[in-house]
């Protein structure tokens, strides 16, 4: 039976959960530190959403600017941070890179954090992902986006090659 996995190489997946939600400045420093390493394949940030308008209640629809919703510079690209960074999940090539990521976290985060290895991102397409993106989806994008969402709102491709 053929392997239906989009990514047949077993990379390590890591999760970093700081004790506090990160300020945009700390998030920028940490992300730049991690993305500066060779061997980081893909990464996503996770946390409570920072909306552009009031989502419910009597003030619903009122435009607002959250103090933490800012443009941050990642590897020379300006990216709008639309969540308050609560955890970072990433895929790296091997255990050496994992150690380097841990060192960067220790250097940048001023408070304790959890650092674990596990399965945090899809390694193969789901049925709904297949239905939405077809058989030729870029393996790097598998599991990074909501099949119903717009790609450009959710993914930032830093290394164009």
């Amino acid at each position: 039976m053929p392997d239906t996995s989009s990514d047949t190489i077993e990379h390590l997946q890591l999760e970093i959960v700081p004790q506090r939600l990160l300020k945009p400045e700390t998030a920028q420093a940490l992300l730049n530190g991690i993305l500066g390493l060779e061997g980081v394949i893909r990464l996503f940030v996770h946390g409570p959403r920072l909306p552009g308008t009031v989502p419910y209640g009597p003030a619903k629809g009122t435009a607002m600017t959250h103090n933490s919703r800012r443009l941050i510079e990642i590897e020379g690209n300006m990216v709008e941070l639309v969540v308050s960074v609560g955890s970072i999940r990433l895929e790296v090539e091997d255990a050496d890179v994992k150690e380097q990521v841990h060192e960067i976290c220790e250097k940048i985060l001023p408070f304790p954090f959890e650092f674990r290895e596990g399965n945090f991102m899809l390694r193969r397409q789901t049925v709904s992902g297949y239905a939405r993106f077809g058989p030729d989806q870029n393996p790097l994008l598998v599991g990074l986006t909501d099949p119903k969402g717009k790609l450009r709102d959710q993914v930032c491709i830093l290394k164009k090659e």
Partner: protein
Amino acid sequence: MAYKPQYYPGATSVAANRRKHMSGDVEKLREISEDDLVMVLGHRPPGSDYRSTHPPLAEMGEPECSIRQTVEPTPGAKAGDRVRYVQFVDSMYNGTSVPYFRTYNAAINFRGVDPGTLSGRQVIEARERDMEEVAKFQIETEMFDPALSSLRGATVHGHSLRLPEDGVMFDMLDRARLESDGIVKMHKDQVGRPIDKKVELGKPMSAKEAAKRTTIYRVDNVAFRSDTEVLEWVHRVFDQRTKYGFKPE
């Protein structure tokens, strides 16, 4: 000998704080002016009259009723005010007053209030001026910490999230911010509408102070299981509730 309510069992600081909140015997820590309070509640413009839903009771000619004669109406009911609400959210990271104890405080110490207790938020409905009295009391005393408690009429989530780096409970609508002078200021009302001026809520409590004043049991502060007297009473309540609910037909 006059009866003295005991309110809550337990020998730990959390149990003592729970007793304080229930009895209303809490320390006053800050001042909030009437106008500032009205501004953050967002029900009427500061300085304006209370709007009413019916004429004052004195003008209405109430029917003959022994209960009406016995119970003095609250000032808000007497004037015919609208029913309005205030809603508080307290962080699980040693927030000062967990929802049940805000409710006990309002229900025991104030008349004409309708407190609603939810898992992460607590709402008090009452005639507008009565509600303002409760809100002022709870904000000005140790029942409120500018960093770990918040006035949130809508979009309340944040109480169960990790704290942001500055220690001010996460708020999706960013109603209160810790400014560079170390004071937490609200620049929106409780539902997230911008207000004309920043309302100062005061300095946040230190982590040590918050741990001392909290009414929440936490394993990393005062563990629930360490309070044997509370545990004994909780077991007793559950035991009796189960037995009395057992009705073999």
